[in-house]
């Protein structure tokens, strides 16, 4: 580093410091003039407004801190389900795009070109204002099967409630799942050392069957169906999916799937033709080739851009504010900001939440990437 560089950077720091202190003095002056409090004390005040979807208990008497958590949970809910749906759909469309069937491949192409070239916000508003809010009222709801209903108040699905003794079933399920993971791992290890494929399904099915039989013997059948029924102007009972959530989830998944499918396609294309031919020469079937040869290698190319799509989906879920889905931006940077007026603190907290989510997601995906990258290099 030359002396000039040192001086330059020093000057830069000084300028930055001056600029920052100028901004701070402006902010404090403005806040005083407009009588806006500062600090994070407002988090403990009573919020006093209702929220249409809460994953944890919430009443109007709860604090803004609780509002923040509820908003965050709603953001996470729509992001996680959206990521799963978009991945599944994206993989299917990406594979379809490469299909030797001309029609299927072209349909996938048209889907991709339409959905990724129309703004996401427009798609969200289309599904919400154009489709879901245009549905008939609950009294004339569209019936799906006998017990699910589609109306402008959302989608009501039948659910079930757990009665006393359901804990036995939960325990049986947990033990079976753990057993599945352990057995799968062992079988894989043994396969790697001996080279013979291991089958553990029969043992697993038997074990799980026994577990559930025990649960049945202890508790009988402790579940009651919870079928929605029309009471007055709306449905009671069942599981209610609010239209805001459905519209946001639909738009996010369909939009992101278009991007994911292009990533998947380029990942699969990147695996050399020689790999396919080698697999065919070994006598592997098409399906086995895809599962054991193509996909594991394609994943190495797919994972990094896929991570940024997951991050994009999470960040894009903030468009919820346009249709009033109670995500963090909507209830915290929206309603709370309007009530409290402490823009600096609230925007700061919101940005920090998104930054941490981004860092967490990329950390998780990077560690997964490291694992599969190693597998590839051993070969």
């Amino acid at each position: 580093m030359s002396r000039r560089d040192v001086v330059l950077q020093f000057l830069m720091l000084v300028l930055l410091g001056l600029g920052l202190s100028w901004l701070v003095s402006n902010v404090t002056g403005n806040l005083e003039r407009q009588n806006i409090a500062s600090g994070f004390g407002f988090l403990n005040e009573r919020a006093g407004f209702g929220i249409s979807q809460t994953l944890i208990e919430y009443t109007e008497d709860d604090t803004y801190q609780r509002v923040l958590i509820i908003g965050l949970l709603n953001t996470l809910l729509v992001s996680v389900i959206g990521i799963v749906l978009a991945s599944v759909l994206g993989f299917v469309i990406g594979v379809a795009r490469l299909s030797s069937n001309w029609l299927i491949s072209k349909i996938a192409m048209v889907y991709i070109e339409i959905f990724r070239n129309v703004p996401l916000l427009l798609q969200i508003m289309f599904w919400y204002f154009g489709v879901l809010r245009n549905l008939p009222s609950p009294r004339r709801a569209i019936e799906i099967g006998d017990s699910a209903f589609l109306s402008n108040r959302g989608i009501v699905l039948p659910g079930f409630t757990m009665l006393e003794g359901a804990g036995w079933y939960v325990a049986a399920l947990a033990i079976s799942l753990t057993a599945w993971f352990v057995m799968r791992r062992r079988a894989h290890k043994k396969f790697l050392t001996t080279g013979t494929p291991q089958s553990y399904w029969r043992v697993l099915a038997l074990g799980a069957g026994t577990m559930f039989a025990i649960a049945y013997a202890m508790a009988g059948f402790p579940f009651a169906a919870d079928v929605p029924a029309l009471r007055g102007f709306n449905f009671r009972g069942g599981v209610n999916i609010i239209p805001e959530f459905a519209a946001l989830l639909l738009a996010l998944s369909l939009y992101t799937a278009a991007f994911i499918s292009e990533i998947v396609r380029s990942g699969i294309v990147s695996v050399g033709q020689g790999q396919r031919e080698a697999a065919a020469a070994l006598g592997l079937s098409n399906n086995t080739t895809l599962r054991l040869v193509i996909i594991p290698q394609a994943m190495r190319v797919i994972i990094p851009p896929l991570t940024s799509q997951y991050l994009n989906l999470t960040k894009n879920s903030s468009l919820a504010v346009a249709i009033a889905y109670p995500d963090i931006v909507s209830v915290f940077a929206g309603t709370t900001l309007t009530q409290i007026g402490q823009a600096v603190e609230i925007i700061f907290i919101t940005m920090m939440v998104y930054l941490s989510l981004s860092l967490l997601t990329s950390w998780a995906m990077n560690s997964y990437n490291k694992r599969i990258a190693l597998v590839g290099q051993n070969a």
Partner: protein
Amino acid sequence: MSSATHWTPKPPRPAPVHTVGVRGWIRTNLFATPSDTLLTLVAMAVLYLTIDTLVHWAYIDATFSGANRDACLKAVQGACWPFVDAKLGQFIYGRYPELERWRVDLVFASGVIGLIPLLIPAAPFKRANVIYLLGFFPVFAFIMLTGGRFGLEPVETTDWGGLLVTLVVAITGIVASLPLGILLALGRRSQMPIVRSLCIGFIEIFRGVPLITVLFMASVMLPLFLPDGVNFDKLMRCLIGVALFSSAYMAEVVRGGLQAIPKGQYEAAAALGLGYWKSMRLIILPQALKLVIPGIVNTFIGLFKDTTLVLIVGLFDLLGIVQFHFTDASWATPETHITGYAFAAFVFWVFCFAMSRYSIFMENRLSTERD
């Protein structure tokens, strides 16, 4: 000796399956195997249903003329196109005074005149063209659109709307984000630790948060940062927010290009005695930017789609103004929403699709040049 082996000809093979011509194409591409056939048939059924619904909605059952909602309220309802027709002026210009709309048209036209020869690789006078677009055009557009000079009626930016706002935000964002992004990318690869960490901080923060929080910051927080009495209008604040946001993404794209340039190029430039800026301008950046043209265009497309977000902070871009006109009671029909969205989606789609096709065209052109 010759054992009289009787020679019997083998039976002739069956005629080869057609693999050429229309029949052969259909067989190999649509009905190669039984499962392929099934797939094709299902896809055809789905396609038929979709296209049938679309054609019915957009054409057969649609209403094409009328003065208000009554025309669109029929037994079988399709698209309500007269709504778009009646509001088209609003969708393009927003509340820009009708008598002054020629100014917007003039700006659109002079922009297109400058852009088209720039996009055609064979067209001459590229340098003059760039000077016109980046030097003359912005000044001209600013004077024409805002007015207040040369006897032009001043028009407040609050009266701007529709496609005009969409294009103003998108083009300003595109023009500002490229140089800013290049500077940030260079800064991120700089030897100077303070410059580097400032650039990394800026890029990572803006890439880690959603655009909507940046726009909130620009619209609610920025006024707090300015001295009392100083304020500039909302459109300007959103422009700054959008430009900063997309420059962070642009920086990462450009960095990809910079990293792909072999070290020898840097060393050769230094050996020729070129200083930092000269070697960047003459050797490194021309190669690096060429490499990442697809990424740059993708960022532009993303930016263009993201302009719709300004409606959340209360500006009326194309989507915002369409949404706003749904409240007009004289056009309230069950189909108005979908018609309006279909129109807006089509306009956005045309722009984005054209950009992506152009980027593919440029990519192919440049890659053949390299061979």
